[in-house]
Protein backbone atom coordinates (compact mmCIF):
# COMPACT_ATOMS: atom_id res chain seq x y z
CA UNK A 1 0.00 0.00 0.00
CA UNK A 2 1.15 3.50 -0.72
CA UNK A 3 2.05 5.37 2.43
CA UNK A 4 2.17 9.12 2.29
CA UNK A 5 3.94 11.27 4.83
CA UNK A 6 3.40 14.99 4.66
CA UNK A 7 5.46 17.20 6.93
CA UNK A 8 4.31 20.75 6.86
CA UNK A 9 4.46 23.55 9.42
CA UNK A 10 1.05 24.88 10.24
CA UNK A 11 0.03 27.91 12.22
CA UNK A 12 -1.88 27.11 15.35
CA UNK A 13 -5.26 28.72 15.74
CA UNK A 14 -6.39 29.66 19.18
CA UNK A 15 -10.03 29.59 18.09
CA UNK A 16 -12.02 26.73 16.69
CA UNK A 17 -12.99 27.13 13.07
CA UNK A 18 -16.64 28.01 13.17
CA UNK A 19 -17.42 30.27 10.25
CA UNK A 20 -17.44 27.74 7.43
CA UNK A 21 -17.56 24.41 9.16
CA UNK A 22 -20.86 23.18 7.70
CA UNK A 23 -19.64 24.03 4.20
CA UNK A 24 -16.41 22.11 4.77
CA UNK A 25 -18.49 19.20 6.01
CA UNK A 26 -20.69 19.24 2.91
CA UNK A 27 -17.62 19.25 0.68
CA UNK A 28 -16.15 16.35 2.66
CA UNK A 29 -19.39 14.41 2.21
CA UNK A 30 -19.12 14.92 -1.57
CA UNK A 31 -15.53 13.65 -1.47
CA UNK A 32 -16.70 10.57 0.45
CA UNK A 33 -19.28 9.95 -2.28
CA UNK A 34 -16.55 10.13 -4.92
CA UNK A 35 -14.38 7.70 -2.96
CA UNK A 36 -17.29 5.32 -2.46
CA UNK A 37 -17.90 5.44 -6.20
CA UNK A 38 -14.32 4.24 -6.72
CA UNK A 39 -12.23 7.40 -7.09
CA UNK A 40 -8.56 6.60 -6.54
CA UNK A 41 -6.28 8.35 -4.04
CA UNK A 42 -4.37 10.02 -6.89
CA UNK A 43 -7.64 11.48 -8.20
CA UNK A 44 -8.69 12.71 -4.77
CA UNK A 45 -5.24 14.10 -3.79
CA UNK A 46 -5.51 17.42 -5.72
CA UNK A 47 -8.88 18.08 -4.12
CA UNK A 48 -7.44 17.45 -0.65
CA UNK A 49 -4.65 19.95 -1.41
CA UNK A 50 -7.28 22.54 -2.37
CA UNK A 51 -9.28 21.84 0.78
CA UNK A 52 -6.23 22.35 2.96
CA UNK A 53 -5.56 25.61 1.15
CA UNK A 54 -9.14 26.65 1.94
CA UNK A 55 -8.63 25.72 5.60
CA UNK A 56 -5.50 27.87 5.81
CA UNK A 57 -7.27 30.85 4.23
CA UNK A 58 -10.22 30.35 6.55
CA UNK A 59 -7.94 30.29 9.61
CA UNK A 60 -6.23 33.44 8.30
CA UNK A 61 -9.60 35.14 7.85
CA UNK A 62 -10.66 34.26 11.39
CA UNK A 63 -7.55 35.95 12.81
CA UNK A 64 -8.46 39.24 11.13
CA UNK A 65 -10.75 40.63 13.74
CA UNK A 66 -10.31 44.39 13.62
CA UNK A 67 -12.72 46.58 11.57
CA UNK A 68 -9.94 47.88 9.27
CA UNK A 69 -9.21 44.28 8.26
CA UNK A 70 -12.82 43.54 7.38
CA UNK A 71 -12.26 43.95 3.64
CA UNK A 72 -9.28 41.58 3.64
CA UNK A 73 -11.26 39.12 5.70
CA UNK A 74 -14.15 39.27 3.22
CA UNK A 75 -11.74 38.73 0.31
CA UNK A 76 -10.26 35.70 2.01
CA UNK A 77 -13.69 34.23 2.69
CA UNK A 78 -14.63 34.75 -0.96
CA UNK A 79 -11.49 32.83 -1.95
CA UNK A 80 -12.42 30.04 0.46
CA UNK A 81 -15.91 29.92 -1.02
CA UNK A 82 -14.51 29.72 -4.56
CA UNK A 83 -12.13 26.90 -3.63
CA UNK A 84 -14.91 24.94 -1.98
CA UNK A 85 -17.16 25.43 -5.00
CA UNK A 86 -14.34 24.19 -7.27
CA UNK A 87 -13.79 21.14 -5.08
CA UNK A 88 -17.51 20.37 -4.92
CA UNK A 89 -17.82 20.55 -8.72
CA UNK A 90 -14.76 18.37 -9.29
CA UNK A 91 -15.93 15.89 -6.66
CA UNK A 92 -19.30 15.61 -8.38
CA UNK A 93 -17.58 15.03 -11.76
CA UNK A 94 -15.26 12.50 -10.15
CA UNK A 95 -18.22 10.64 -8.66
CA UNK A 96 -19.82 10.24 -12.10
CA UNK A 97 -16.57 9.17 -13.80
CA UNK A 98 -15.52 6.80 -10.99
CA UNK A 99 -18.99 5.30 -10.74
CA UNK A 100 -19.07 4.61 -14.49
CA UNK A 101 -15.56 3.14 -14.39
CA UNK A 102 -16.36 0.93 -11.40
CA UNK A 103 -19.55 -0.32 -13.06
CA UNK A 104 -17.70 -1.12 -16.30
CA UNK A 105 -14.89 -2.88 -14.41
CA UNK A 106 -17.41 -4.94 -12.47
CA UNK A 107 -19.29 -5.98 -15.61
CA UNK A 108 -16.02 -6.84 -17.38
CA UNK A 109 -14.83 -8.91 -14.40
CA UNK A 110 -18.06 -10.93 -14.35
CA UNK A 111 -17.84 -11.38 -18.14
CA UNK A 112 -14.25 -12.60 -17.85
CA UNK A 113 -15.41 -15.03 -15.18
CA UNK A 114 -18.00 -16.41 -17.66
CA UNK A 115 -15.39 -16.67 -20.40
CA UNK A 116 -13.03 -18.45 -17.98
CA UNK A 117 -15.78 -20.94 -17.18
CA UNK A 118 -16.34 -21.64 -20.93
CA UNK A 119 -12.59 -22.07 -21.54
CA UNK A 120 -12.33 -24.31 -18.51
CA UNK A 121 -15.18 -26.50 -19.81
CA UNK A 122 -13.56 -26.75 -23.27
CA UNK A 123 -10.24 -27.68 -21.67
CA UNK A 124 -12.00 -30.32 -19.60
CA UNK A 125 -13.77 -31.72 -22.70
CA UNK A 126 -10.52 -31.95 -24.66
CA UNK A 127 -8.68 -33.54 -21.75
CA UNK A 128 -11.35 -36.19 -21.29
CA UNK A 129 -11.52 -36.78 -25.05
CA UNK A 130 -7.75 -37.23 -25.38
CA UNK A 131 -7.71 -39.50 -22.36
CA UNK A 132 -10.45 -41.70 -23.83
CA UNK A 133 -8.64 -41.89 -27.20
CA UNK A 134 -5.45 -42.83 -25.38
CA UNK A 135 -7.25 -45.56 -23.48
CA UNK A 136 -8.79 -46.95 -26.69
CA UNK A 137 -5.41 -46.90 -28.42
CA UNK A 138 -3.79 -48.71 -25.53
CA UNK A 139 -6.60 -51.31 -25.54
CA UNK A 140 -6.05 -52.15 -29.23
CA UNK A 141 -2.28 -52.25 -28.80
CA UNK A 142 -2.62 -54.99 -26.18
CA UNK A 143 -1.51 -58.46 -27.10
CA UNK A 144 -2.86 -61.65 -25.63
CA UNK A 145 -0.05 -63.91 -24.46
CA UNK A 146 -0.39 -67.43 -23.17
CA UNK A 147 1.07 -68.11 -19.77
Amino acid sequence: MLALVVIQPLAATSQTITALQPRFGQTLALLHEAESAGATSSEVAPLVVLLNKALELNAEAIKLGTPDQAQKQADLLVQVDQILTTVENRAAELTVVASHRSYTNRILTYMFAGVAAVLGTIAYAFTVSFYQEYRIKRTFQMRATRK
Partner: protein
Amino acid sequence: MSFVSSQNRRTLIAVFITLLVVCEMVAYVTTTPRPREQFFQLYVLGTKHMAADYYPNDNTDIQLGEPVTWYLGITDNMGSVQLVSIRVKIGNETLKPPDDQQGLESPAPVAAEFTRFIQDNETWETPFVWSISDAVSSGGSTRVLALQINNETCQIQDWSATKGHNLRLLFELWAWQTEANAFEFGWMTGGEHRVAWLQVWFNMTSPRPT
Protein backbone atom coordinates in the same frame (compact mmCIF):
# COMPACT_ATOMS: atom_id res chain seq x y z
CA MET B 1 -16.31 -34.77 -31.10
CA SER B 2 -16.90 -38.30 -29.98
CA PHE B 3 -16.85 -37.20 -26.35
CA VAL B 4 -20.02 -35.12 -26.75
CA SER B 5 -22.44 -37.98 -26.70
CA SER B 6 -25.84 -37.64 -25.12
CA GLN B 7 -24.55 -39.16 -21.89
CA ASN B 8 -21.49 -36.97 -21.58
CA ARG B 9 -23.32 -33.78 -22.52
CA ARG B 10 -24.84 -33.71 -19.06
CA THR B 11 -21.38 -34.10 -17.51
CA LEU B 12 -20.14 -31.16 -19.59
CA ILE B 13 -23.05 -28.98 -18.51
CA ALA B 14 -22.42 -29.88 -14.87
CA VAL B 15 -18.70 -29.02 -15.24
CA PHE B 16 -19.58 -25.71 -16.92
CA ILE B 17 -22.08 -24.74 -14.20
CA THR B 18 -19.59 -25.64 -11.47
CA LEU B 19 -16.80 -23.63 -13.12
CA LEU B 20 -19.18 -20.73 -13.74
CA VAL B 21 -20.21 -20.60 -10.09
CA VAL B 22 -16.58 -20.79 -8.92
CA CYS B 23 -15.36 -18.12 -11.37
CA GLU B 24 -18.24 -15.76 -10.59
CA MET B 25 -17.55 -16.18 -6.88
CA VAL B 26 -13.92 -15.25 -7.48
CA ALA B 27 -15.10 -12.23 -9.51
CA TYR B 28 -17.43 -11.19 -6.68
CA VAL B 29 -14.66 -11.46 -4.08
CA THR B 30 -12.20 -9.45 -6.19
CA THR B 31 -14.69 -6.66 -6.97
CA THR B 32 -16.12 -6.34 -3.46
CA PRO B 33 -14.02 -4.26 -1.08
CA ARG B 34 -13.10 -6.14 2.06
CA PRO B 35 -14.05 -4.59 5.39
CA ARG B 36 -11.05 -3.36 7.33
CA GLU B 37 -10.43 -1.90 10.71
CA GLN B 38 -10.81 1.87 10.70
CA PHE B 39 -8.60 3.88 13.00
CA PHE B 40 -6.39 6.91 13.44
CA GLN B 41 -2.91 7.06 14.88
CA LEU B 42 -1.85 10.08 16.90
CA TYR B 43 1.72 10.67 18.00
CA VAL B 44 4.03 13.24 19.55
CA LEU B 45 7.76 12.99 18.86
CA GLY B 46 10.65 14.78 20.50
CA THR B 47 13.21 17.20 19.08
CA LYS B 48 15.12 14.49 17.19
CA HIS B 49 11.98 13.07 15.62
CA MET B 50 11.98 10.12 17.98
CA ALA B 51 9.93 9.07 20.97
CA ALA B 52 12.63 10.57 23.21
CA ASP B 53 14.31 13.91 23.95
CA TYR B 54 11.09 15.71 24.73
CA TYR B 55 12.74 18.27 27.00
CA PRO B 56 15.66 20.64 26.40
CA ASN B 57 18.81 19.19 28.04
CA ASP B 58 16.66 16.27 29.27
CA ASN B 59 15.34 18.52 32.00
CA THR B 60 11.60 18.34 32.60
CA ASP B 61 11.74 21.76 34.22
CA ILE B 62 10.90 24.18 31.43
CA GLN B 63 12.22 27.71 31.83
CA LEU B 64 10.24 30.83 31.01
CA GLY B 65 10.59 31.55 27.29
CA GLU B 66 12.57 28.37 26.62
CA PRO B 67 11.49 26.91 23.26
CA VAL B 68 10.57 23.22 23.11
CA THR B 69 10.26 21.48 19.75
CA TRP B 70 8.02 18.49 19.24
CA TYR B 71 6.33 16.95 16.23
CA LEU B 72 2.63 16.13 16.12
CA GLY B 73 1.39 13.54 13.68
CA ILE B 74 -1.79 11.79 12.61
CA THR B 75 -2.17 8.78 10.32
CA ASP B 76 -5.51 8.20 8.64
CA ASN B 77 -6.48 4.53 8.35
CA MET B 78 -10.19 5.23 8.03
CA GLY B 79 -10.43 4.25 4.36
CA SER B 80 -11.41 7.74 3.21
CA VAL B 81 -10.48 11.42 3.35
CA GLN B 82 -10.95 12.80 6.87
CA LEU B 83 -11.11 16.26 8.38
CA VAL B 84 -9.19 16.03 11.63
CA SER B 85 -8.17 18.37 14.36
CA ILE B 86 -5.58 18.11 17.13
CA ARG B 87 -6.71 20.15 20.11
CA VAL B 88 -3.97 21.17 22.50
CA LYS B 89 -4.93 21.73 26.13
CA ILE B 90 -2.89 22.61 29.19
CA GLY B 91 -3.65 21.30 32.62
CA ASN B 92 -2.27 20.43 36.03
CA GLU B 93 -2.29 17.14 37.94
CA THR B 94 -5.88 17.61 39.15
CA LEU B 95 -7.21 18.09 35.63
CA LYS B 96 -9.60 15.36 34.56
CA PRO B 97 -8.06 13.63 31.53
CA PRO B 98 -10.18 12.40 28.60
CA ASP B 99 -12.34 9.40 29.43
CA ASP B 100 -11.50 6.46 27.16
CA GLN B 101 -14.50 4.40 28.26
CA GLN B 102 -17.13 7.11 27.91
CA GLY B 103 -15.35 8.83 25.00
CA LEU B 104 -15.40 12.20 26.77
CA GLU B 105 -12.87 14.95 26.18
CA SER B 106 -10.92 16.71 28.92
CA PRO B 107 -12.72 19.78 30.33
CA ALA B 108 -9.57 21.90 29.96
CA PRO B 109 -9.87 24.88 27.58
CA VAL B 110 -8.36 24.60 24.10
CA ALA B 111 -5.03 26.45 23.87
CA ALA B 112 -4.41 25.72 20.20
CA GLU B 113 -5.90 23.73 17.38
CA PHE B 114 -4.45 22.20 14.23
CA THR B 115 -6.99 21.30 11.57
CA ARG B 116 -6.26 19.39 8.40
CA PHE B 117 -7.79 17.24 5.67
CA ILE B 118 -5.87 13.99 5.31
CA GLN B 119 -6.22 11.20 2.79
CA ASP B 120 -6.56 7.53 3.53
CA ASN B 121 -3.21 5.99 4.46
CA GLU B 122 -1.61 9.41 4.71
CA THR B 123 0.44 10.64 7.66
CA TRP B 124 0.34 14.33 8.36
CA GLU B 125 2.95 15.78 10.62
CA THR B 126 3.52 19.31 11.87
CA PRO B 127 6.23 20.85 14.03
CA PHE B 128 4.98 21.96 17.44
CA VAL B 129 7.32 24.61 18.82
CA TRP B 130 6.11 25.94 22.13
CA SER B 131 7.30 27.89 25.10
CA ILE B 132 5.80 29.33 28.25
CA SER B 133 5.79 33.02 27.48
CA ASP B 134 4.25 34.13 30.74
CA ALA B 135 3.87 32.53 34.15
CA VAL B 136 3.64 34.03 37.59
CA SER B 137 4.23 32.72 41.08
CA SER B 138 1.60 33.40 43.68
CA GLY B 139 0.98 31.77 47.04
CA GLY B 140 3.28 28.82 46.45
CA SER B 141 1.77 27.92 43.11
CA THR B 142 2.71 28.76 39.54
CA ARG B 143 0.09 30.15 37.18
CA VAL B 144 0.76 29.74 33.47
CA LEU B 145 -0.72 32.78 31.76
CA ALA B 146 0.41 32.45 28.16
CA LEU B 147 1.93 29.92 25.82
CA GLN B 148 3.72 30.63 22.58
CA ILE B 149 2.81 27.94 20.05
CA ASN B 150 4.32 28.10 16.56
CA ASN B 151 4.87 31.86 16.91
CA GLU B 152 1.33 32.51 18.08
CA THR B 153 0.49 33.56 21.59
CA CYS B 154 -2.25 31.62 23.34
CA GLN B 155 -3.67 33.11 26.53
CA ILE B 156 -4.32 30.60 29.28
CA GLN B 157 -6.76 31.18 32.10
CA ASP B 158 -7.00 29.70 35.56
CA TRP B 159 -4.36 27.00 35.35
CA SER B 160 -1.90 26.75 38.18
CA ALA B 161 0.25 24.03 39.71
CA THR B 162 1.66 23.70 43.19
CA LYS B 163 5.28 24.95 43.07
CA GLY B 164 5.04 24.60 39.29
CA HIS B 165 5.13 20.81 39.35
CA ASN B 166 3.12 18.38 37.24
CA LEU B 167 1.81 20.55 34.48
CA ARG B 168 0.88 18.77 31.29
CA LEU B 169 0.00 19.36 27.69
CA LEU B 170 -2.84 17.25 26.36
CA PHE B 171 -3.33 16.44 22.70
CA GLU B 172 -6.78 15.25 21.68
CA LEU B 173 -7.73 13.93 18.28
CA TRP B 174 -11.04 15.24 16.99
CA ALA B 175 -12.56 14.09 13.71
CA TRP B 176 -15.35 15.53 11.60
CA GLN B 177 -18.48 13.39 11.78
CA THR B 178 -20.47 13.80 8.58
CA GLU B 179 -23.68 12.52 10.20
CA ALA B 180 -23.49 15.04 13.04
CA ASN B 181 -21.99 17.71 10.77
CA ALA B 182 -19.58 18.69 13.53
CA PHE B 183 -16.21 17.86 15.07
CA GLU B 184 -16.40 15.14 17.70
CA PHE B 185 -13.78 13.80 20.04
CA GLY B 186 -12.61 10.49 18.58
CA TRP B 187 -14.30 8.57 15.81
CA MET B 188 -16.83 5.83 15.18
CA THR B 189 -15.83 2.42 13.85
CA GLY B 190 -17.95 -0.71 13.74
CA GLY B 191 -20.56 0.93 15.95
CA GLU B 192 -17.97 1.73 18.62
CA HIS B 193 -16.66 5.09 19.71
CA ARG B 194 -12.87 5.24 19.83
CA VAL B 195 -10.68 8.04 21.09
CA ALA B 196 -7.01 8.96 20.83
CA TRP B 197 -5.19 11.37 23.10
CA LEU B 198 -1.73 11.92 24.53
CA GLN B 199 -0.23 13.91 27.34
CA VAL B 200 3.29 15.11 28.14
CA TRP B 201 4.14 16.20 31.68
CA PHE B 202 6.50 19.02 32.57
CA ASN B 203 7.41 21.37 35.41
CA MET B 204 7.65 25.14 35.45
CA THR B 205 9.46 26.15 38.62
CA SER B 206 10.92 29.49 37.55
CA PRO B 207 8.02 31.86 36.91
CA ARG B 208 8.36 35.60 37.12
CA PRO B 209 7.52 37.01 40.53
CA THR B 210 4.18 38.80 40.85
